């Protein structure tokens, strides 16, 4: 249905069209969860929340018509202080900060989603969630990371990626050789052959290098440090490194096929993403 002149458009539609992904309201302080089934019917319970934040993409929020009547929202929740550093560093898949939430300890729990009718949203007092597009983009990125990240097998995460992550973090100053090596890598990806569900999985790492002008050290230095770290992995049963164990490639050197066959490693979610 086109915006504007139709007499069948609801009167709250103009208010709806102000809403954006990441915007919040504290008018609604409850989310609905289903805790069971009785006699074939769902058992709904209302769970306390500080407010709601819009998770649906903006284009899906503002469009109205058949099968476009609903919007996904997440509760705003208050977290204890000891969790906040992890949330603010982007290390927690389920929680992400909202810039204009009532307080810094109130974050979006994007692991709990609820669907509400757009009229409910339109009639609620709206607070812009973010002050600029960068903030909105970070929120959208958090949602896509939560629901789009590849789930590596637990053994691979625990015994390969987690130790590798510790070595990469290491106790090295930012201007160290190791820092220069890993800042020359724009992304780390892995390929499993024949597939992650196989009994015996060969794993190869693809380290995507920045373009030449952004490299902070030489390729052979990068290869040397990476090889040293990968050689220390104690591979769990069912997994082994490919031969060669890793490749260094710029995007220009990588084929689309190689890209599609590989999965990115989200290092920050390795600990929390299980």
């Amino acid at each position, binding site marked *: 249905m086109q915006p504007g002149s139709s007499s069948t458009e609801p009167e709250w539609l103009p208010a709806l069209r102000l809403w954006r992904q990441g915007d919040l309201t504290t008018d609604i302080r409850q989310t*609905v*969860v289903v*805790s069971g089934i009785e006699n074939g*019917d*769902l*058992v*709904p*319970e*209302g*769970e*306390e*929340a500080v407010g709601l934040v819009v998770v649906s993409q903006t284009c899906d929020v503002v469009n109205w018509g058949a099968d476009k009547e609903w919007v996904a929202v997440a509760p705003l*929740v208050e*977290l*204890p202080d*000891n*969790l906040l*550093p*992890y949330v603010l*560093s*982007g*290390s927690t898949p389920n929680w992400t900060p909202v810039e204009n939430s009532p307080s810094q300890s109130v974050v979006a729990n994007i692991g709990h989603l609820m669907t509400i009718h757009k009229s409910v949203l339109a009639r609620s007092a709206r607070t812009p969630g973010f002050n600029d597009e*960068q903030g909105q983009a970070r929120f959208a*990125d958090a949602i896509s990371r939560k629901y789009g990240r590849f789930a590596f097998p637990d053994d691979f995460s625990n015994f390969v990626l987690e130790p590798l*992550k510790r070595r*990469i*973090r*290491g106790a*090295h100053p*930012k201007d160290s050789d190791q*820092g220069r090596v*890993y*800042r020359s*890598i724009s*992304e780390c990806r892995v*390929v*499993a*052959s*024949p*597939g992650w*569900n196989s009994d015996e999985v*060969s794993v*190869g790492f693809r380290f995507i290098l920045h373009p*030449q002008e952004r490299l902070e050290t030489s*390729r052979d230095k990068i290869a040397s440090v990476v090889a040293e770290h990968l050689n220390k992995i104690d591979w769990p049963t069912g997994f082994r490194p*490919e*031969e*060669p164990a890793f*490749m260094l490639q*710029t*995007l*220009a*050197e*990588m*084929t689309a096929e190689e890209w599609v*066959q590989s999965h990115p490693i989200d*290092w*920050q979610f390795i*600990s*929390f993403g299980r």
Partner: protein
Amino acid sequence: MSADALPPIEHLPPVQIVQEVDYDPERGMFREPTSNAPRRSSTLDVIVIYPGFSRTAATKLDLLPQEPLPIASSSVDIPAQLASIKRMTGLGWEDIASIVGCSRQTVHNWTLGGKASASHRDRVSSLYSAVVYIDRGDVDENRRLLTSAFDGQTAISMLQNAEYDRVKQAVGRGTPRNDATWGVVESNETSKHWYDTLVESPDALEGDFAPLPTKARKRLVLKKA
């Protein structure tokens, strides 16, 4: 006789133009102007391509082999070789086409599965062989070498003249690329580099959290539609 064996055109004796024909480089055939039916030449001719064709075609001699031009069914994977050349050198399709001696559109058609003439297949394969030979494993370094001058001539210029052996000799052999042949498998730049974010993140505190406060819940009445 290959085109490499001919002296430069300006050193050739005057030739009698017997017939002007259209040349279809993609099909490797000639078309008689009085008929749209293509035919293969079975004689050794020197063809001067007149204006109406690309500048490249107009300034180069296209020498036919004595035997009929074969259909370009190929045991050589031209698209794969072109992709490798492109990937190893960073050259654009325009540059690659110039080296191979055809138009950019022709090269593009090859990447879509279009058939290449035997002579063009040879040139692509020879170019690929030369690139693999000189490959330093670094696209920027490879490009630098190709654009560098050796005895007053760039490697690219030598390749355009099909002087592949001269290129190999001038540039030297690179380190064989350790291409993985892994089994068949069933950018957005953030403001901060992933490594910096990782090292600045707090240490993981698995199992060290205080339990989250339980949220109050109350039973709701389900209103049926």
